[in-house]
């Protein structure tokens, strides 16, 4: 029987069942342990980045090539027929007719869902505006499982910009399938949106809104840091809150031994460089895991069995 993700579009983390998330995580772990160079042999993947991206694009393209597949595409929508006024629907119809799957990033929300309605081959969402970035969530889940040995009953703190961060929203939704417990640490202006808190209430998931990073650190298995963007505040306001959401090495002295610090990167100054040398730092390994998570997903979408 074909695996449940075979020939499926990968658009939104909300489309995944718990079992499908676990399948991707298990497959990523296996591919990290025992690399394969044949799972995409003879396959051609369209890499369509209508908006520039460094990590996501390079890790997708690395994943394809490591699995023996090849890539065509573009890294910037400025050089495509979209610039001449072609609809995304038409562009994807054509690109889908050349390739076995399309990986895409687009500045507008909903672009990947729309593309999936016009593509004859699976579409994988590499980010649509502020909406979804499912492969980031998959690599985060893989990293959580790798560092904690389980996805069940974890205590996770999210720190920084919880209002605009699609990474945070998707990961919270995915982890609520695994009975997680959350701490949300953010300035009031960047607090978790109400609709997400309502969703957690409906699912009976416990969460705590906290002000102080110091109080939260000893309580958690995962400290998920994000960047507080300067442009969201006026200068005086930014100075006032800036220091409160910066992680310093000495703040980790009461952390649990299993606690890992994650960050979707790029970091600016919210994690002090001295943290890198502590046993808690795991964000670079997390970024490396992006390749394995994307390998797992591409393999499952393009092979009946892996």
């Amino acid at each position, binding site marked *: 029987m074909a695996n449940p993700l075979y020939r499926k579009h990968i658009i939104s983390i909300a489309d995944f069942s718990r079992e499908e998330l676990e399948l991707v995580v298990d497959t990523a772990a296996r591919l990290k342990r025992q690399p394969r160079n044949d799972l995409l042999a003879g396959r051609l993947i369209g890499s369509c980045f209508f908006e520039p991206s460094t990590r996501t694009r390079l890790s997708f393209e690395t994943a394809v090539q490591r699995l023996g597949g090849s890539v065509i595409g573009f890294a910037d929508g400025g050089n495509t027929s979209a610039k001449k006024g072609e609809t995304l629907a038409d562009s994807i119809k054509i690109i889908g007719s050349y390739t076995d799957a399309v990986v895409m990033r687009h500045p*507008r*929300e909903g672009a990947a869902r*729309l593309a999936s309605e016009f593509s004859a081959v699976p579409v994988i969402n590499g980010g649509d505006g502020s909406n979804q970035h499912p492969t980031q969530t998959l690599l985060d889940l893989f990293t959580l499982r790798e560092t904690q040995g389980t996805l069940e009953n974890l205590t996770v703190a999210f720190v920084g910009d919880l209002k605009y961060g699609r990474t945070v929203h998707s990961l919270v939704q995915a982890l609520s399938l695994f009975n997680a417990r959350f701490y949300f640490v953010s300035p009031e202006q960047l607090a978790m949106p109400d609709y997400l808190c309502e969703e957690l209430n409906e699912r009976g998931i416990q969460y705590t809104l906290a002000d102080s990073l110091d109080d939260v650190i000893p309580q958690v298995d995962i400290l998920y840091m994000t960047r507080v963007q300067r442009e969201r505040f006026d200068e005086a306001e930014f100075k006032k809150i800036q220091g409160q959401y910066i992680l310093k090495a000495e703040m980790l002295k009461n952390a649990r031994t299993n606690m890992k610090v994650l960050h979707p990167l790029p970091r600016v100054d919210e994690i002090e460089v001295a943290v890198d040398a502590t046993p808690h730092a795991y964000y670079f390994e997390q970024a490396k895991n992006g390749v394995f998570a994307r390998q797992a997903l591409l393999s499952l979408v393009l092979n009946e069995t892996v």
Partner: protein
Amino acid sequence: MEYTRTVEALKEGTVIDHIPAGQGLKILRLFRFADTGERVTVGLNLSSRHMGSKDIIKVENVALTAAQANELALFAPKATVNLISNFEVVKKHKLELPEAIEGIFACPNSNCISHTEPVESHFYVRPQGTDTKMKCKYCEKVFSKDIVAEVR
């Protein structure tokens, strides 16, 4: 006692009655009744025994479909919809909130892809307490029904 009809009786068509006062024009726009070319009679702020005041819409020679009646449930869940033939009520629609609404409202999110591509808007509808939430199929943003209805 002399009795006068506020709105003339209808020979063929649809009567939407018991619309909460103030929603009548919104519903008129929702179904584009004015564009049908048929005679449309609208009563606003009519007195009602049960509701205090109400709006009413009569459209000649147009039969509201069950799907349209369900869309009506968004704004006037207690409205009554009677299909009239030869001055008689031949069918009453029971209003039920639809699971999805396609092509009527534009997505309030200006950065949603549905604005620039050849697709109909599409919202999933879910009651939440006294409000109704609408989630755009494309951008996945969730809005209160009043926000979505304002945009059109």
